[in-house]
C-alpha cells in the first residue's frame, strides 16, 4: 500500500519539484535521486509482492501481481539508469546549444512525469485509468520528443501525437465496450472496469462484444506497441527525440503498452472460446517482425535503425504471447525484460557515439573501438546481444520462442527465419563499421556515463546463463497468469 503510493508519488513529486525549481545544475542530480528513490520503492514493493503474493490496494484501485510487479521493477530500474545516462548526455547537449535552460527544465520534469504515468499504467487495476495513464504517457513524451524544436523533431512529435492519440482513442472505445459488456454482470459501479473483477467473471462476458472490444483495444494499444501497420510514428519519435527519451520509449513505454494488450488478451481469451485473440496477436507479431526486418535494411540513421529493431522485438514478444502456453509466455516475459535492458543500453551507447561524432548518420560514425573502446565495445556487444547472439538473454528467450513455434506454429517459422536473418544482416552490417573500421576523430567534453550500459549488458548476460530462481518463479507465475 504505502509502497505503491511511494512508487507513484516519488516521480510525481519529483516532476513537480523539477518543474518548480527550474533549470539548475542540481536538476540532473535531483532527477537521478528521484529515479533512484522510485527504484528503491519499486524494489521494496517487489520484495513485498514476492513474499506476500498479489495485493490489492486503495479500494481495489491498484493491483499488483507477479506480472506487473516485475515490469514495475524493470521500469523503475531502467528509469533510474537512464537518468544517470541522461546527466552527461544532456549536459553536452546544453553546452552544444541544442537545448536551452527552459527546455531542460521541461525535460527533467517531463521525464519524471513520464515515469509516473508508466508506473501508474502498470499498477492500476482500473482499465479506464490504464487508458488515462497511457494517454498521459503519450502527452508527456510528445513534449520530450519535440524537445529540440527542430523541424524534424516537430514533425516526429506531431505524428506521434496524432497517430497515438487516434490509436489510443480506439482503445478507449474498446474500453467502453468492455465496460458495456461487464456492466451487466458487475453493475454500473466502479467494479465493471476493475481488472481483477473482470478477470473473475471473464468466462461469462459476452463473446461478441469482447471480440469487438479486443479489436479496438488491440488496434489502440497496438499503435503504442508499434505493431505494423500501426507503427509509423515509432521510428520518427525514436530518432528525433533526445537519446535518453529514445531509450525509455523503446525500453519501457512499448513494454507498458504491450502489458495493456496482454491484460486485455487475458480477459478476451477467457471470454471467447476460439483462438481469435491468439491468432490476431500472432499475425500482428509476425507481420511486425517481417516488415521491420525489411525496413531495417534501409536505415541510414542509427537511432532509426534501433527503433525498427524495437518494432521487430515487440513483434516477437507479441507473437510469443499470441502463441501462449507456459513456455512461450515465459519466453515473452523474459524477452520483454532483456529487450528493454539491452535496447536501452544500446541507446546509451548510441547516444554517446552520436555525440562523439556529431551525427546520427551511420556513415558518419566509424571506428569507435579504436577511439573510445568503451563506447565501441558497448555498442558492439549490445548489438550482438539484441540480435540474439548467445550467451545473452535475448537469445534465451528467442530460443524458447523459436523452438516452441517450430512445434506449435510451424507455418510461422520460415517467416521468422527469414526475418531474423535479414534483421541480422541489416543491423550488423551497419553497426560493424561503426564499431570497427577507420576512426573518425572527435572528443567528448564530459566523461560518458557508460556504467549503465555495462550494468545492463551484464544483467542480460547473466539472464542468458543463469536466471535467478526467484525471477524464474516469478516469470512462471506471470506466465501462468497470462495463460
Amino acid at each position, binding site marked *: 500500500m504505502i509502497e505503491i503510493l511511494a512508487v507513484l508519488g516519488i516521480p510525481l513529486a519529483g516532476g513537480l519539484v523539477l518543474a518548480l525549481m527550474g533549470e539548475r545544475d542540481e536538476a540532473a542530480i535531483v532527477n537521478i535521486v528521484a529515479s533512484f528513490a522510485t527504484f528503491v520503492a519499486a524494489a521494496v514493493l517487489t520484495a513485498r509482492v514476492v513474499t506476500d503474493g498479489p495485493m490489492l490496494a486503495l479500494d481495489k484501485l491498484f493491483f499488483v501481481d507477479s506480472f506487473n510487479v516485475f515490469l514495475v521493477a524493470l521500469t523503475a530500474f531502467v528509469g533510474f539508469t537512464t537518468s544517470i545516462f541522461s546527466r552527461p548526455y544532456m549536459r553536452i547537449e546544453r553546452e552544444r546549444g541544442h537545448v536551452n535552460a527552459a527546455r531542460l527544465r521541461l525535460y527533467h520534469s517531463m521525464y519524471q512525469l513520464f515515469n509516473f504515468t508508466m508506473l501508474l499504467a502498470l499498477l492500476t487495476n482500473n482499465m479506464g485509468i490504464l*487508458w*488515462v495513464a497511457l494517454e498521459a504517457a503519450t502527452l508527456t513524451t510528445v513534449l520530450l520528443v519535440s524537445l529540440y524544436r527542430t523541424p524534424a523533431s516537430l514533425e516526429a512529435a506531431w505524428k506521434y501525437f496524432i497517430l497515438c492519440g487516434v490509436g489510443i482513442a480506439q482503445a478507449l472505445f474498446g474500453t467502453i465496450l468492455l465496460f458495456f459488456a461487464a456492466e451487466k454482470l458487475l453493475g454500473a459501479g466502479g467494479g465493471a472496469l476493475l481488472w481483477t473483477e473482470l478477470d473473475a467473471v471473464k468466462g461469462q462476458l459476452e463473446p461478441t462484444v469482447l471480440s469487438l472490444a479486443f479489436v479496438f483495444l488491440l488496434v489502440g494499444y497496438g499503435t503504442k506497441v508499434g505493431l505494423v501497420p500501426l507503427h509509423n510514428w515509432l521510428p520518427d519519435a525514436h530518432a528525433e527525440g533526445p537519446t535518453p527519451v529514445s531509450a525509455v520509449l523503446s525500453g519501457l513505454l512499448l513494454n507498458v503498452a504491450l502489458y495493456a494488450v496482454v491484460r486485455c488478451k487475458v480477459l478476451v481469451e477467457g471470454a471467447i472460446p476460439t483462438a481469435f485473440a491468439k491468432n490476431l496477436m500472432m499475425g500482428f507479431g509476425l507481420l511486425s517482425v517481417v516488415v521491420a526486418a525489411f525496413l531495417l535494411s534501409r536505415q541510414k540513421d542509427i537511432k532509426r535503425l534501433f527503433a525498427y529493431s524495437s518494432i521487430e522485438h515487440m513483434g516477437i514478444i507479441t507473437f510469443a504471447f499470441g502463441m501462449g502456453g507456459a513456455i512461450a509466455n515465459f519466453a515473452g516475459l523474459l524477452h520483454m525484460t532483456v529487450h528493454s535492458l539491452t535496447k536501452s543500453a544500446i541507446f546509451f551507447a548510441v547516444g554517446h557515439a552520436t555525440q562523439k561524432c556529431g551525427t546520427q548518420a551511420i556513415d558518419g560514425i566509424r571506428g569507435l573501438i579504436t577511439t573510445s573502446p568503451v563506447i565501441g565495445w558497448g555498442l558492439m556487444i549490445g548489438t550482438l546481444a539484441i540480435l540474439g547472439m548467445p550467451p545473452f538473454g535475448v537469445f534465451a528467450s528467442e530460443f524458447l520462442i523459436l523452438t516452441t513455434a517450430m512445434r506449435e506454429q510451424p507455418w510461422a517459422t520460415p517467416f521468422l527465419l527469414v526475418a531474423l536473418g535479414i534483421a541480422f544482416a541489416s543491423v550488423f552490417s551497419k553497426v560493424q563499421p561503426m564499431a570497427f573500421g577507420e576512426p573518425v576523430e572527435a572528443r567528448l567534453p564530459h566523461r560518458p556515463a557508460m556504467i549503465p550500459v555495462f550494468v545492463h549488458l551484464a544483467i542480460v548476460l547473466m539472464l542468458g546463463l543463469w536466471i535467478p530462481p526467484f525471477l524464474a518463479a516469478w516469470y512462471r507465475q506471470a506466465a501462468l497468469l497470462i495463460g
Partner: protein
Amino acid sequence: MNVLPLYAQLINLFAAILLLLSFAMLAQRRVLSLIDLFAAQGLALAASTAIVAFGTGQHHLYWSAGLTLVLKVFLLPWILYRLIRQLDVKWDFERLINVPTTMLIGIVLVVFSFNLAVPISQLASTVTRSTLGIAMACVMLSFLMMITRRKAIPQVIGFLSMENGLFFAATSATYGMPMVVELGIALDVLVGVLILGVFFFQIREQFDSLDLKHLEKLKEGE
C-alpha cells in the same frame, strides 16, 4: 413494437443530430465554421448526457454533462478561436479527397457501423442501446475526417470530434464510465489541446504554415 419513453426518444434525436453534425464537419471547408460545428456537437453531447442523467437517474452523469458543456462548448472552441485568430488561418483549404467521395465513404462507414453494432445492441440492458451504432459511426466519421484533412487544425478538430463520439458512446450506451475515469479523460483531452496549441505555434514558426505537407520529411520511401 412498443414506444420508447420520451427521454429515450430525445436521446435518439440527439444521436441523430450528432451524426448529422459529424457529416457536416466532414463536408465543411471553413475552419471557423468547423469550430462552430464542433461546439454544436459538444452542446448536443452535453444535452444528451443530461437527458440520460435525467431519464435514468444516474446523477453522476450531470457532472459529466457539465464537464462536457464547459470543456467542449466553451473552453476548447474558445482556445481554438484564439489560436486561429493568432495564427491567422481562416481561409479555405484544399483536401485530399473531394467532398462527394468523402460523403459516399462516410455513408458506407455508417452502414458498416450500424451493421456492427446491431448484434451488440441487442445485448444491452440500457434503453438507449441503439445509440451505440451512432456513436461508432461518429468515431469512424471523425477518423475519416482526420484522414482527409491536410491542415493541422482541422485534423485536431477531427480528433476532438472523435473524442466526442467516444464520450457519447460512454454516456448513452453504458450510462457513463466511473467518474475518476471520466475526469482523467477530460484532463487528458484538455492537456492534449493545450499541447497542440503550443505545437501550432512551433510548427508555424518552423514552417511558416500549418499545412501538413511540410510534415512529410521523415519517411522510408524514396
